[in-house]
């Protein structure tokens, strides 16, 4: 009796967008709490924890991704206005940027091209499929923009979203050690490198080190999002032209 009632409620809920939306928010809030409780350990990044918990839940209840997404799309939709909103921190940091404009532009262009080309080439060298290589190419760009680029060049946007998050975590984990071993101590340089390679998650890590490193990292994240969306389609076309049949 009670069981059939529960089944009926479940059948009703699983057909309504309310479930997917609420599950997304609850999973994120719980994952965020766990992250804070463990002293912001980057391995417990709330995005990864929440994604894994949601996948587990959907698999256990036999719910399809499509059903879940009917509700979660309301959160997903906000990626668009959030991307537009990146113009505001960019504008607020613009005066600091002017002083180092030329070095930042050079670093940005080199970083963006090296980042995309190296991920495609390494993935290709170890036998990844063309779709995977293309999904990896925008991995260093903030997720909303990376997903748009991935779609544009023929990658898989949702695979890109996951790869972007993992890239940010790797960047946050290796950044300080890498800079120390390269003897780079200037916070503006460290910030720019962090933002170009590891977008928002790297920026969050940079703010823990110093406000200046954080500001430059946020700036680099916004600029590289723009530069990558301009240059990556060209780079991919060029790679296709020099080696036909590879991508």
């Amino acid at each position, binding site marked *: 009796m009670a069981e059939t009632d529960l089944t009926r409620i479940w059948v009703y809920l699983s057909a309504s967008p309310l479930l997917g939306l609420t599950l997304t928010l609850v999973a994120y809030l719980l994952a965020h709490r766990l992250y804070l409780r463990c002293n912001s350990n980057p391995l417990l990044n709330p995005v990864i924890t929440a994604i894994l918990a949601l996948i587990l839940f959907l698999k256990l209840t036999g719910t399809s991704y499509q059903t879940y997404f009917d509700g979660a799309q309301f959160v*997903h939709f906000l990626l668009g206005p959030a*991307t537009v909103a990146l113009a505001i921190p960019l504008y607020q940091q613009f005066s600091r940027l002017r002083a*180092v404009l030329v070095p930042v532009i050079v*670093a940005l262009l080199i970083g963006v091209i090296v980042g995309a080309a190296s991920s495609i080439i390494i*993935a290709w060298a170890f036998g990844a499929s063309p779709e995977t290589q293309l999904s990896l190419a925008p991995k260093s760009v903030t997720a909303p923009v990376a997903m748009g680029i991935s779609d544009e060049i023929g990658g898989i946007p*949702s*695979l890109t979203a996951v790869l972007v998050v993992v890239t940010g975590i790797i960047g946050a984990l290796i*950044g300080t050690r890498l800079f120390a071993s390269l003897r780079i101590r200037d916070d503006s340089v460290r910030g720019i490198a962090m933002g170009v390679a590891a977008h928002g998650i790297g920026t969050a890590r940079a703010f823990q080190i110093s406000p200046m490193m954080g500001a430059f990292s946020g700036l680099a994240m916004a600029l590289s999002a723009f530069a990558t969306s301009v240059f990556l389609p060209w780079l991919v076309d060029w790679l296709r032209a020099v080696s036909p049949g590879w991508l």
Partner: protein
Amino acid sequence: MQFLNGITILLVYQLVGEVIVRLFDLPIPGPVMGMLLLFLSLLLRGKVDPSMDTAARGLLSHLSLLFIPAGVGMMVYFSRILDEWLPIALALVLSTAITMAATAGAMVATQRLLARKEGNDG
């Protein structure tokens, strides 16, 4: 009300961005064009409206929440990730380290070059 004003402005910029990208067949995502347009108009106006600042802060402080629905889409590609985990892992780790080192190196080298040039000029 502030948040509503701010989010409306952001949506208008996104909409204009999408229209321009489609109209001129540009290879960049519509929201990125919207970001560029907003940035340019902020430069022209010389200040950020408090309502827009409120909306932007609200959205950007929980940016990571917004990746989750797409990230769950990974469940559809589980077998691909299992099949290709080695190239994916190597590409992520090596390429992130290479990108960081190349970016930092390029910035330091350019700064030195400019400083030397300035030294010669002066």
